[in-house]
């Protein structure tokens, strides 16, 4: 049964005020379009969970959607800090935000526990760090077999995850290539999953290469087909990362007024991702297009 819908309807159905939310993707396939739709629909009091809040959470924070940020690295990769995140954390503007902080490894282990239905996940992490003192979901655990020890993290189980992939069938079985990040874990750990893809494909395409499948329909509630839905993040093989947008964010978000003007223009000022892409313009889109480089084929064989 087809789960294909619009981003507007998927967000309207899946995301409630007060929800905990994971917009997944490590640099790659970040669901910017979903984030913008959540801002347009005016959701508030969200717990924003994400290893790397990135620009998309900075925008959600600037728009006043957040009450809490659960994270492990809150910066603009290769550029510097996230201005709106800092204003919220340092000055409480536009909302006070509570912080729940991990290391990347700890955060991923917590998602792994959530994805696996385990009460905790051990890791050799946080050792010598001051972080465990400030987070009750990190605890030291002794090995039952010797005098070794580890830290454990409690499961993270978001109400809603939005994940992206390059292609999926109408049920939500998705092929993803390039950097996978924590996409699979976020989908498995969350109660409700919106899957957004660059293009829809047939079930046959999925079945032709089952090792490429990262998300299966079991986890997916809504499928949204949304080309360029990750810009200024990227989709491997479809378009590159718009590094200009990341570099200019430092200035764009430098103060309250400039970031609000940006939101007015690029989020509130467009109806949906299609309008956003039209506004970006053909030249910018074309500049991001990579040359084609196909993976060497593999033969799965036909067995009777």
């Amino acid at each position: 049964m087809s789960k294909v819908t619009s981003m507007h309807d998927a967000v309207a159905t899946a995301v409630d005020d007060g929800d905990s939310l994971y917009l997944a993707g490590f640099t790659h396939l970040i669901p910017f379009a979903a984030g913008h739709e959540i801002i347009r629909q005016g959701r508030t009091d969200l717990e924003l969970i994400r290893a790397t809040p990135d620009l998309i959470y900075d925008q959600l924070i600037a728009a006043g959607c957040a009450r809490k940020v659960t994270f492990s690295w809150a910066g603009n990769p290769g550029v510097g800090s996230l201005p709106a995140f800092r204003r919220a954390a340092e000055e409480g503007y536009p909302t006070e935000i509570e912080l729940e902080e991990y290391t990347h490894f700890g955060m991923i282990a917590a998602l792994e526990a959530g994805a696996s239905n385990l009460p905790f996940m051990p890791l050799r992490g946080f050792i010598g760090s001051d972080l465990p003192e400030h987070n009750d979901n990190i605890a030291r655990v002794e090995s039952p077999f010797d005098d070794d020890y580890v830290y454990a993290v409690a499961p993270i189980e978001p109400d809603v995850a939005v994940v992206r992939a390059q292609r999926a069938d109408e049920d939500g079985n998705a092929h993803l290539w390039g950097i996978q990040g924590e996409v699979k874990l976020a989908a498995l750990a969350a109660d409700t999953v919106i899957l957004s893809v660059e293009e829809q494909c047939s079930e046959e395409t999925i079945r032709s290469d089952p090792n490429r499948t990262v998300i299966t329909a079991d986890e997916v509630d809504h499928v949204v087909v949304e080309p360029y839905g990750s810009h200024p993040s990227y989709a491997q093989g479809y378009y590159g990362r718009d590094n200009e947008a990341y570099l200019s964010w430092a200035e764009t978000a430098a103060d309250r007024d400039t970031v609000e003007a940006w939101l007015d223009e690029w989020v509130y000022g467009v109806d949906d991702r299609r309008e956003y892409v039209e506004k970006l313009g053909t030249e910018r889109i074309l500049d991001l297009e990579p040359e084609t480089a196909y993976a060497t084929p593999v033969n799965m064989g036909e067995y009777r």
Partner: protein
Amino acid sequence: MTTDETETDTETETARERAYTNSELMVVAAARELESDDSVLVGIGKPNLACNVAKRTHAPELRMVYESGTIGSNPKTPPLSIGDPGLAAGALSIEPMRNGFNYYLQAGRLDVGFLGGAQIDRYGNINSTVIGDYDDPIVRLPGSGGACEIACHVDRTMIITPHTERRFPEEVDFITSPGYVDGREGREELGLDGGPEAVITDLGVYRFNDDGELYVDSLHPSATRDEIQSKTGWEIEFADDLQQTAEPTDEELRLIREELDPEELYTDQAE
């Protein structure tokens, strides 16, 4: 080498100094820390440049691994982020994030990691979390990311940072990533091997003595002992045989300027 000699050297080098900047020297000094069979967890900016300089000169077999899970990346141009598409295309392998941390970092498959930080203390402990009180910060920094576990699990941590006074306090406001804790024994008691190998700044290259305490191993041609001491929050040691940091070669400068950072995103380049 005495202070006098160092100063003399610095003066005689003034002409040549124009030919490169200290940020270029930092990149080159970091590159020289790498060996050809190292697997290195690469950071963005200068660490990435350093790895690419090393790979294109004395360490062709260097394996570059990124926190995003790309193994054996071979980017054509330096990435802005650790997850750029050019790190994925042409990599030997791409691991989900959990596998990268679990099977590569925690399991001890990575030799070198690069870290930065807002504060570094005399035992190489790093703060990249918060200036001031954790619950009422003066400056909220990005946080650990991969840094804490990199500091725990690689054999040799390299720290690249400008040397300013607020960056080198005797004690950091918050330990994000452990160095030698309160000395090498402190680190051992936590069950950790490895540790910080070198701190590379715009003034010199520093290492850690048998107690796990930072000392200045070489001075950059443009720097002085006094400058380093005046910007350090404790009485810093200098090596008995304090060296001058070796200067970039023409080939190293060419690589940085023409191939790796032509737009000067990560280095200031001499005119």
